[in-house]
């Protein structure tokens, strides 16, 4: 995720201090990974250098987090452009799972077992996410759903592969 664009976007509703930006980021987006002050500082100085933000005031005391930042017109355009640009879909073509299945078949190990064990591992993670979703707020639900749909996609691939193992074995050992 682009931290720069996210911080910039948070500034659009009004100027904020460095510490306030970090707090807003952590609260909204940082669920598992809060930002370090160092990250905020380096990101803000880059945005400053590129003219996307300006310093709007400095609180007494020192430390970069005491600077108050405001977004510039160029900054607003940059956020707009970022939001309007679709994210590149992940091609997901480099699959360790696929490699493992083929190697298992090549070495005459039990590929069906491997798939079952993987399903079980995926389900374990999905249970944790489902639990978190059940007890969480809407933000938790949306974030967990995103992860759950991805894990589900892996599992659908896994079921399909399990159903075609015989054919795959034939193809790879030929």
């Amino acid at each position, binding site marked *: 995720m682009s931290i720069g664009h996210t911080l910039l976007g948070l500034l659009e509703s009004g100027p904020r201090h460095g510490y306030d930006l970090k707090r807003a980021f952590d609260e909204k987006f940082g669920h598992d990974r809060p930002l370090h002050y160092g990250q905020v500082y380096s990101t803000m100085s880059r945005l400053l250098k590129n003219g996307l933000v300006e310093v709007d005031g400095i609180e007494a005391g020192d430390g970069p987090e005491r600077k108050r930042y405001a977004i510039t017109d160029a900054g607003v355009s940059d956020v707009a452009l970022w939001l309007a640009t679709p994210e590149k879909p992940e091609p997901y073509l480099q699959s360790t799972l696929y490699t493992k299945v083929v190697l298992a078949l090549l070495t005459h190990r039990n590929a*069906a077992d491997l798939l*079952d*064990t993987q*399903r*079980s*591992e*995926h*389900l374990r993670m*999905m*249970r944790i*996410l*489902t639990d978190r979703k*059940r007890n969480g707020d809407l933000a938790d639900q949306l974030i967990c759903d995103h992860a*759950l749909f991805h*894990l*589900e996609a892996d*599992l*659908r691939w896994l*079921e399909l592969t*399990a*159903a075609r193992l015989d054919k795959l074995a034939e193809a790879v050992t030929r």
Partner: protein
Amino acid sequence: MTHHPAGSLLAASGLRKTYGPTTALDGAEFSIHPGEVVAVMGPSGSGKSTLLHCLAGIVPPDAGSITYNGQEMAGLSDTQRSALRRSEFGFVFQFGQLVPELTCVENVALPLRLNGTGRKEAERTALAWMERLEVDDLGAKRPGEVSGGQGQRVAVARALVTGPRVLFADEPTGALDSLNGERVMELLTEAARSTNAAVVLVTHEARVAAYSDREIVVRDGKSRDMERAV
């Protein structure tokens, strides 16, 4: 060959069932504890529904043992088995389980009425369950007049109304979109947990299976307990 895990409410071992030339179950094992939700997964045609039907005493296995509460099912008469089904088990299927001529509340109350409960009391209990499943406002409607998701919640209420100790659910969310399906799963597992009922949940959907405590996989009529396998 009967070796059933200690403390299990419902357990089966060495289950075999053939339909003509087709082997539906080929030595399947199963066990579930009170309050546990176990997902039964596996490819289409692998024997999941057959396993559920055997466990519920709907279909007799050709071989193997099933015990409920420590009692061998094969030792029961047909009458005893259907009495057991009516009083201790609840069922939810994918479609078409509600009686179209009855209102929703009459549908939910039906299992109680069949067990001899008076109409007033049965409908009062039915409404309480419908409230838990967030469909108490549909009491007067007939199944044809409610949405698929609502109908499925009514069906879950009906399955739970007798306070079953085991709930059998075969693709209970199969006909629902994912938001509705998940809500049904949430309500179903919540209700089952609060009454300490065990749930046997056949599903091919991982997101639905994620509401279970553990899963078994059925393949070619054989079961694999993933908890013990890992």
